[in-house]
């Protein structure tokens, strides 16, 4: 395993061919610059990332960030999917995504407002009845 600088780190190790995390050379804390928390609140796993049009000029970004922009370029991608595709731990992806969000390269869509409390007295999902109904009908129609 090599500890090359991030700049010289090619994106291919994230592909399906990399069969171990050790093969990905760069340690997670290096990718995040030592941070373990993003500046924003923790993004939900299923939050969808959408790349903004002007993110094309994404020079000077780390390979990991560029890779995120690449994966999210043509479709909505969730945090969890990015984590799987990039073979990076969820926490790392969260930090990178919120970095990119702050830099204006992408937006994050979340269905459920963070810290929602619906007053139902339980750790409730915060989903509305109509959403649940759509889900129910959707599953039934599959």
């Amino acid at each position, binding site marked *: 395993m090599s500890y090359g600088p991030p700049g010289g780190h090619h994106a291919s190790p994230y592909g399906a061919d990399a069969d171990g995390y050790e093969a990905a050379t760069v340690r997670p804390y290096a990718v995040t610059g030592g941070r373990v928390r993003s500046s924003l609140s923790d993004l939900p*796993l*299923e939050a969808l990332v959408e790349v903004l049009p002007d993110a094309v000029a994404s020079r000077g970004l780390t390979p990991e960030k560029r890779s995120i922009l690449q994966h999210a370029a043509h479709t909505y991608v969730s945090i*969890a999917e990015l984590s799987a595709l990039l073979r990076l731990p969820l926490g790392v992806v969260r930090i990178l995504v919120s970095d990119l969000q702050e830099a204006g390269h992408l937006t994050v869509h979340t269905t459920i407002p963070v810290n929602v409390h619906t007053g139902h007295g*339980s750790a409730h999902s915060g989903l509305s*009845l109509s959403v649940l109904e759509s889900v129910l009908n959707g599953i039934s*129609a599959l």
Partner: protein
Amino acid sequence: MAFPPSDCVPGNADGPSGAGGAGVGIMPSWAPVSGGARAEEGPGPHWAGSAPGSAPAASAPEAVRPAAAPPAAPSAFPAAGQPPRPAATQPARTSVLGGGAGAGAANPTASAGVIDRVPGAAGTTSPAAGALAPARPAVSAVPTTAPAPAVPAAQVPAAAPVPAPDVARRSPQQEPEARPAAGSPATGRTAPTTVKIVIAGGFAVGKTTFIGSISDVEPLNTEAAMTEHSVGVDDAGGVTDRKTTTTVAMDFGRVALPGNLWLYLFGTPGQDRFLFMWDDLVRGAIGGVVLVDTDRLEQCFPAIDYFESRGIPFVVGVNCFDGVAKHRLEDVREALQIPAGVPMLYTDARSRTATKQTLISLVQLAMRQLRSGTGA
């Protein structure tokens, strides 16, 4: 019409779900199933036949009664998928693949536009029409100056070369225009609504299979840890020939539902030391499905405890390996001390229909709880 809502009345949960599982148990896994027609084909017999004497839970009288009387259910579900559900049901078939109702509607109009303009172009410049029709041999001889390469009937030198490439250029140009509207949501400007359901259970109980049986995409997984320290620490439950340097934290899949909804299914990490991740997984989830392997009952205790203590709606699915129910649901319920309000049902992680049914009963439970305003 689809599956009879299995757990309409909590008290009866065992009966109908047994019936649902019965029709399903012997179905080939991943079979494309439309509606519930097929599920109804052989309710009791298969089940009883496959496990003679050992599965009285699904015996005919009990199973049939509730299935025949779903109206007792909360008013919202006469039978899943019938007309009274307005907006959401309608785009159901059209938009499963695409980005939702809007995309589905946009597509036809776009293609109509293509058709509209092609004849229009042809009409204004008749030579183009002539080029497409069998050519008049007499005229083609006149202007040899026109290159007229591929098209045999280039009649008027000035007009002919122009419209022909024009038409050719236009249609490919329009197609990419129509495609993003349908295929790539990124240009559609409305992000899908994401919802999620957590699939819990012990190691190797079939969570990934369960997810895979309904997911649009191959289940993906994320990795949480990357140290060698997990070797010898994780209880692999007898499955020890796993990767040792990486630890798969959780699997997940995605299903696109009509109405621009994306349903994510997250499988919980099987290892105990990842319990801390559950808070993350569960935040904002519709609820949980606890898969139970009756050979290793104790493995699902943490999941049941977790959901129960946090008031998260959950159903218990007894995964029938080999399509055989080894124990009656009541016995499992008693063994696990699952409260009466928690629906239990047989399921088969390999069967899309059974998976669907399990998810449906969970969503129904979540709706009941939301209506009544109580947690668990």
